[in-house]
């Protein structure tokens, strides 16, 4: 029975099937909202209002020719998309998505899982770098280098911003953090700065405009993904979609008091809160144009990191007062 339960968790909910369905829905939502913000229609043909368009794109890529560059390391080049997908799907397991009992630590909810989630979320960046590096293409290498340069910009503010609610809640466990803020929702008002810092950092992590510097089509063709095609590109795109879902899920857990109330209500809250975060991400994408990599690093260290440190100070003061 336990095996079946674990298999259901891993494969169906909140494992790979749910994440696939929900991430394609989120991509559709993002594209549709982005199009409407730009006064366009967006996906309209496949399914009702184009809702199946991301699935159709995924299937189309699966059937396309799959090319591995002659000089590339075949094993690493082919395994990177799968590893990346596995990493982000694993993050999905750690989100307190179904009703995790706060009193019982389990395999997917323990002290320190917020750190695990943050580190698993920085692995895709490394995978993008390796993908660019092992493509042995000038554009890919340049994209990979830009990935790493950006990593040093946004990772610090993201960590600081995500950890400051944990300091107030006095726990390194996602379920306990969200439980704490369900009890004291007004304390979330002190975390607004951190919320916006982490949303901007997530935008950079997902490499979306204005931080789409590593795969800037107009400058370096496709950047990291220049040599990728077919199934591997499909997996990379699915990986980015799932990363968007779990990243916004993490922000919703930490800054929006999580998803309480059992499977149905919890799922409803999860959808609502992640869609809110994704809507903000789309708005940023529509409002900005791409900046240069040096501007991005300057922006992170001049504005984002000080704001995250300020958030940390606020959290420490708040914690001192409530104790």
């Amino acid at each position, binding site marked *: 029975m336990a095996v079946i339960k674990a298999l259901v968790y891993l494969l169906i909910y909140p494992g790979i099937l749910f994440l696939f369905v929900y991430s394609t829905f989120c991509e559709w939502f993002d594209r549709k909202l982005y*199009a*409407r*913000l*730009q*006064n*366009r*229609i967006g996906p*309209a*043909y496949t399914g009702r209002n184009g809702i199946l368009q991301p699935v159709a794109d995924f299937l189309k890529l699966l059937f396309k020719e799959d090319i591995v560059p002659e000089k590339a390391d075949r094993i690493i080049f082919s395994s990177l998309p799968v590893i990346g997908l596995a990493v982000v799907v694993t993050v999905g397991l750690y989100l307190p998505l179904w009703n995790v009992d706060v009193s019982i630590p389990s395999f997917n909810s323990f002290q320190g899982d917020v750190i695990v989630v943050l580190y698993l979320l920085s692995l895709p960046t490394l995978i993008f770098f390796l993908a660019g590096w092992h493509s042995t293409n000038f554009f890919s290498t340049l994209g990979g280098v830009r990935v790493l340069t950006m990593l040093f910009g946004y990772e610090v503010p993201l960590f600081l911003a995500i950890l400051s609610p944990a300091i107030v809640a006095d726990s390194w466990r996602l379920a306990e953090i969200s439980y704490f803020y369900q009890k004291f929702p007004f304390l979330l008002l002190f975390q607004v700065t951190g919320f916006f810092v982490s949303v901007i950092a997530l935008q950079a992590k997902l490499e979306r405009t*204005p931080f789409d510097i590593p795969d800037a089509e107009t400058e370096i063709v496709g950047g990291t993904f220049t040599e990728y095609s077919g199934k591997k590109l499909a997996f990379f795109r699915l990986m980015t979609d799932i990363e968007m879902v779990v990243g916004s899920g993490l922000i919703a857990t930490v800054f929006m008091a999580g998803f309480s109330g059992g499977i149905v209500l919890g799922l409803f809250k999860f959808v609502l809160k992640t869609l809110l975060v994704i809507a903000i991400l789309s*708005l*940023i994408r*529509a*409002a*900005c144009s791409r*900046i240069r990599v040096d*501007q991005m690093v*300057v*922006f992170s260290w*001049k504005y984002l990191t000080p704001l995250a440190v300020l958030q940390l100070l606020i959290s420490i003061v708040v914690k001192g007062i409530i104790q």
Partner: protein
Amino acid sequence: MKFKPAAFVPELLRHLFRRPATIEYPFKKMKVPDDFRGTPILKPELCIVCRACVRDCPAFAIEIETLSDEEKRYKMTIHNDRCIHCAQCVESCPTKALFMNDEFEIATDSRLKLKAEYTYTRPAKKSTQQSQNG
């Protein structure tokens, strides 16, 4: 750093409540302008075979062949693949036998499919005109 990302946000949010500027193109089509120059089409019953169009066409896209002099049967071939859609033939035609239609999706897989042929008998217009004049 001059970086004002929020400058466009009110405009973007306004778009959310506005009708989209684009249409679902292959399913719905926009109306073309009134003087749009599509494919040249011949109304054979008006053609008097003066060959003004053949002479004036800068792309040599119009040919007129004589099939039979006695029966006054002619064949006009309009090569739409050569046509540059300048509508000079329409301007030159004294009887307004040529016009440009609204068609703008004329792409095909073979240029031969773009050829339009018209076989017709010249109307006895000259004689009536002559009798009217005379």
